[in-house]
C-alpha cells in the first residue's frame, strides 16, 4: 500500500531537511512543473480528482482554474496554505507540517506557479510550535537552494514565501476570515461573492488550500493523475490521513487509501474499543460533522459515501463516542466551543449558539424540559446553511441535529430523570 504523504516521515517527527527531502525525489516535481505552461499544471491537478482535505472537499484543480490568468489581471496574486488546524478532534496537518515541511512548500510553489502568484504565506496556528520551527527552517533552506526567490528552480518565475503565526480563534480557518487576519484585522468572514479566487488578500486573486491538499500536489505532478486516482478505493483520487481519538485501544493517525471503511479504521488501525467500553457513535470528520452510529460502520470514508450516509468526511479524523460517555455532554462540549469561537458577526450564530449551549447545560444539570428539545430542533433550522455568513454555525448544528436523531432517548432520559444518567 503506497503512502506518498507520510512514508518518509520519521517516528519522532523531526523534519526532513532539504537534502533529505531531495533524496526522496523532492523538488523534482517543481522542476518539472515550471517547464510546463501554468494552465497545464492546473489541468493535471484537476484531472487527478484531488479534493480539498480541509473539510469542504472542493476540487483543488477547479479552484485554481477560477483564478484570472493572463496579462491584464489584478496583481500581485497570493497563494496561501491554511495551516490553522483547529477543528476539534483533528490532528492530521500537524504531522505533515512537523515531519515533512518541504513537501508542503513544494506543493505551495507548484500551486503558486499554476496561478502565477507573486507572494505566498503559510498561515499557522500559534499552538503548533514544532511546526513553526520546521516551516521556518524549511523556507530558509528553500530560498538558499533557489526554490524560492527570483528564479524559482532556474525559471523566470518569482515567488516569495513567509510564515504567519496566528494568535488564536477557530474562525481563522475560514478562508475569507483568514484573509482578514492576514490583513491585520479581526477574523470576521467576508461576503461571497466575490470569492477569494477573484478578490482575496488585499483585494487580489488569492488561493487558500489546506496543508494536506497541498502536500499531495508534488506527487501528482511527479507521478501523474492516473497514478493518483489509483491510490484510492473510489473515483475520488488519493490517499487520506485518517485518525481516531476517544476510548479506542490505539488512538492515532494513518495514511490509507481514500474510501476505506469506517470499520477498518476503527477495528484494524485503532485496535477496536478499550476493554469495558462499547462503541456508541462517531463524528467521522471532526467536531462539525454529523454523528454516525454502529449501523454505518461499513460506510466508505470518501466524500460522496459519507455524505450519502448523512454526514461529511470533513477532516477524516474520527472522534469516538463510547457507551460510558454522555452524548448530551459531548454535544454540550462542542456547542460551548462553537459559541465561544463565534466571531459575533452575524446574528443567528452570535445569539443562537450561546442559547443552544445554555439549553444543553440545563439538560445536563437535570433542569431540562421537553420543550427544550423543540427549541434545539428550531436552532438546527435557524442556523442551517444559507442563514449565516459562514459555515461555523451550520457546522455547529451538525453534531446537534444528528444527536437529536440518534440519541433522542438519552436527551429524554436527562429530562425524565432530572439528572445526567452518566453522572
Amino acid at each position: 500500500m503506497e503512502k506518498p504523504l507520510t512514508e518518509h516521515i520519521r517516528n519522532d517527527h523531526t523534519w526532513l531537511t532539504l537534502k533529505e527531502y531531495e533524496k526522496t525525489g523532492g523538488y523534482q516535481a517543481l522542476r518539472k512543473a515550471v517547464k510546463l505552461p501554468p494552465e497545464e499544471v492546473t489541468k493535471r491537478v484537476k484531472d487527478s480528482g484531488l479534493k480539498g482535505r480541509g473539510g469542504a472537499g472542493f476540487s483543488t484543480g477547479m479552484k485554481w482554474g477560477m483564478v484570472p490568468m493572463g496579462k491584464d489581471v489584478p496583481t500581485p496574486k497570493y497563494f496561501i496554505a491554511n495551516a490553522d488546524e483547529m477543528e476539534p478532534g483533528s490532528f492530521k496537518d500537524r504531522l505533515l507540517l512537523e515531519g515533512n515541511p518541504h513537501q508542503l512548500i513544494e506543493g505551495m510553489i507548484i500551486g503558486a506557479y499554476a496561478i502565477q502568484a507573486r507572494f505566498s504565506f503559510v498561515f499557522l496556528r500559534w499552538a503548533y510550535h514544532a511546526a513553526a520551527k520546521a516551516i521556518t527552517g524549511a523556507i530558509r533552506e528553500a530560498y538558499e537552494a533557489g526554490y524560492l526567490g527570483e528564479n524559482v528552480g532556474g525559471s523566470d518565475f518569482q515567488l516569495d514565501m513567509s510564515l504567519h503565526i496566528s494568535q488564536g480563534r477557530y474562525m481563522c480557518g475560514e478562508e475569507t476570515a483568514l484573509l482578514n487576519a492576514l490583513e491585520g484585522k479581526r477574523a470576521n468572514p467576508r461576503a461571497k461573492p466575490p470569492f477569494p479566487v477573484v478578490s482575496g488578500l488585499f483585494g487580489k486573486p488569492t488561493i487558500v488550500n489546506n496543508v494536506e491538499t497541498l502536500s499531495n500536489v508534488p506527487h501528482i505532478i511527479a507521478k501523474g493523475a492516473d497514478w493518483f486516482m489509483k491510490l484510492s478505493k473510489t473515483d475520488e483520487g488519493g490517499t487520506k490521513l485518517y485518525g481516531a481519538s476517544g476510548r479506542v485501544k490505539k488512538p492515532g493517525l494513518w495514511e490509507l487509501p481514500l474510501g476505506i471503511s469506517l470499520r477498518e479504521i476503527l477495528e484494524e488501525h485503532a485496535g477496536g474499543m478499550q476493554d469495558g467500553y462499547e462503541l456508541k457513535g462517531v463524528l467521522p470528520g471532526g467536531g462539525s460533522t454529523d454523528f454516525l452510529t454502529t449501523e454505518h460502520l461499513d460506510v466508505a470514508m470518501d466524500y460522496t459515501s459519507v455524505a450519502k450516509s448523512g454526514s461529511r468526511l470533513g477532516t477524516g479524523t474520527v472522534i469516538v463516542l463510547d457507551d460510558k460517555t454522555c452524548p448530551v455532554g459531548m454535544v454540550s462540549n462542542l456547542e460551548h466551543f462553537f459559541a465561544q469561537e463565534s466571531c459575533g458577526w452575524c446574528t443567528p450564530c452570535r445569539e443562537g449558539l450561546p442559547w443552544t449551549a445554555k439549553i444543553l447545560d440545563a439538560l445536563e444539570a437535570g433542569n431540562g424540559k421537553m420543550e427544550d428539545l423543540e427549541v434545539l430542533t428550531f436552532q438546527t433550522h435557524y442556523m442551517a446553511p444559507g442563514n449565516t455568513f459562514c459555515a461555523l454555525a451550520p457546522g455547529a448544528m451538525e453534531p446537534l441535529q444528528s444527536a437529536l436523531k440518534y440519541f433522542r432517548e438519552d436527551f429524554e432520559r436527562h429530562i425524565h430523570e432530572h439528572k445526567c444518567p452518566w453522572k
Partner: protein
Amino acid sequence: MTVEKIFKEKEIREIQEIHRHFPVKSAACIEALKVIQKHHRWVSDEAVRELAEILEMSPEAIDSVATYYSLIFRRPVGRHVILICDSVSCWIMGYEKIVDYLKNKLAIGYGETTPEDRFTLLSIPCLGTCDRAPAMIIDEDLHQDLTTEKLDKILEKYE
C-alpha cells in the same frame, strides 16, 4: 506634562520593520501586538495607545483587533501561561479531572494568576493532539497523555 512612554526603541524598530512589508500600515497590527507581548507579556492600555500612533490607527481600532484574538493578552499574565485543551477529545478522555487538580493545586480559576505571578491558567480549543489526550501547553511546551499523577512533576519545571 509628558507621559512616559512604555515602548523601548528596540520595540519600535521591530514594529516599523514589520509594517514596511505590508501594503498598508494597519496590516501590521497583529504582528505588532505580538512584538509588544513578547516584550511585556501582555498588552496594556498604554501600549494600545502608543501602537495606535505608530500605525496611524485609532486606539479603538487596535483594541478591537487585540480583544478579538484569544492569545493576545489584554490583562497581565504570569511568567508561565498554562493553556489546557477543553475540546471534545480531551473532554471524552477526562480533561476535567486535570483542570480541577490544577485549580486546586494552584488555588486559582480560569483567567487568574497565582501570587508572585508564577502561573496563569487559561483554556484553549483543540490542540491537535487528540490521539494523546488530555493535553495542555505551558509557555511553548506541549504536554500530552496527562494524568493527575504527572502534573506535579510537570509544574516543578516552571519556576
